[in-house]
């Protein structure tokens, strides 16, 4: 536990050091400014999308970039020479990757409240962000571990976005009919985005929430257990 805390602090320190956290904070603040010009209804509709993008896409890019960067630097190897379990090393990376999602959730929630007086259950949003964040971290690691450098991992990301995130966006804009939504739930990104939408709109569909949560948790366990954990070490050793 002590080690995990130190590992997470190390990861956060690097996020600041590499200017990733400051830059994402600036982007979040730009969104607040945009909120000033939106109606309450528009703001409520767009807020989940902002949070979702940071929880999913941004954390995939963050994990991919830092994985390839650290592999090239050889620091993963060096970390494996510490009396720390690999589970802790991975967990620290997952936890710190969620900072972006949390940060944009906090900024967005604050903007909704201070500009439009909108409140909702923040605890529920936090839980959904964690569930969605872990699942997307798993996906991020799979993309990173199966690509030889950051550029090729971006290619894989595009290949992931087309079938898994694009339909979800089309659905959000009403281009895909409501009756096909159950199909979309197979996409972890859609499951994540609908959970976040539920939380922000305070408008729950209990069955969908349940299925979405269970699906994402199940997916996270399977992906980490069978696809990430085993490959992480051999991947770091190379070079």
């Amino acid at each position, binding site marked *: 536990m002590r080690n995990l805390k130190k590992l997470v602090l190390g990861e956060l320190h690097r996020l600041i050091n590499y200017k990733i956290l400051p830059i994402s904070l600036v982007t979040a603040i730009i969104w607040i400014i945009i909120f000033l010009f939106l109606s309450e209804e528009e703001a409520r509709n767009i807020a989940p999308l902002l949070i979702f993008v940071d929880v999913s896409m941004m954390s995939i890019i963050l994990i991919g970039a830092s994985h390839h960067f650290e592999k090239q630097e050889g620091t993963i190897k060096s970390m494996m*020479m510490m009396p720390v379990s690999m589970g802790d090393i991975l967990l620290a990376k997952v936890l710190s990757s969620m900072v972006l999602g949390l940060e944009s959730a906090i900024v967005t929630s604050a903007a909704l409240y201070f500009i439009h007086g909108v409140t909702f259950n923040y605890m529920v949003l936090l839980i959904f962000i964690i569930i969605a964040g872990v699942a997307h971290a798993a996906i991020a690691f799979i993309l990173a571990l199966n690509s030889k450098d950051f550029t090729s991992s971006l290619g894989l990301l595009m290949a992931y976005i087309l079938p898994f995130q694009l339909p979800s966006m089309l659905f959000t804009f009403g281009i895909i009919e409501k009756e096909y939504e159950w199909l979309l739930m197979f996409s972890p990104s859609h499951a994540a985005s609908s959970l976040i939408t539920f939380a922000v709109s305070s408008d729950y569909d209990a069955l969908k929430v349940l299925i979405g949560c269970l699906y994402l948790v199940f997916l996270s366990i399977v992906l980490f257990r069978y696809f990430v954990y085993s490959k992480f070490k051999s991947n770091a050793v190379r070079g």
Partner: protein
Amino acid sequence: MSNAFQVKDLRFKYKSSKEDTIKGVSFDVMEGEIFGLLGPSGAGKSTTQKILIKLLEDYSGEISYFGKDLKSIGKSFYEEVGVGFEMPVHFSKMTAMENMKFFSGFYKQTANVQELMEQVGLWEHRNVKVGDYSKGMKVRLNFVRAMLNNPKVLFLDEVTNGLDPKNARILKDIISDYRNRGGTVFLTTHLMNDVEQLCDRIAFCVNGKLYEISTPRDLKLKYGKREVKIEYKEEGATLDRIFPLEGIGLNEEFQNILRTKEIETIHSGETSMEDIFIKVTGGVL
């Protein structure tokens, strides 16, 4: 003395390669010695080191670490061993000191970082980002990283590679001191100098196999040319003669030169480690 490592019939194959990279090697690393693997690039030295430090796991054969099966030892292993990698292993956007602070924070026992950094001449550059370090500075920082936890066993992969002679000398002196204080060292190198100046015992490594595990001195006795070369002055010119070391005390011709000529140099015919390596393994360094 007990064995730090005992390796029996070690074999290893990378998933992506067709044949075994390590083809059945056996050796012991004794506590308190500097054991060196000498061989050309691609021989399998780094692979062997990565197996011993538990980075590569799917090996066959037996490896014991102080009598215990290496596979059964958990994370506590890394409290005891220090590993110096061939390539840089630091966060390049952070300073050397930030790096050392981060890594040393995870060990129960830590060395005096300032002392180590001073010894290798990096203390005044401690607040420089590692990305701005020269290659040689990164190599020295790798060494400090390996020593961070006051290890009982030290692994060094091509530790002097990329260092100027002065800094190579400094590292070698620190390594010898470490051994003299009871430390055990496993090192790999393709440099003859390292072997001759540092190692208590060496193994020649070529193409995944080991040849001749011995001390540098015994190798020289066994494979060195046993002869004496003498250079002397005669009528203004320098001449040389070579005599067999065998029965040199009774060799009339040799004695005669000693008695009557002005001697310039006498050398016993040292065969270089390089020649011995080629003779034993048939390979080139």
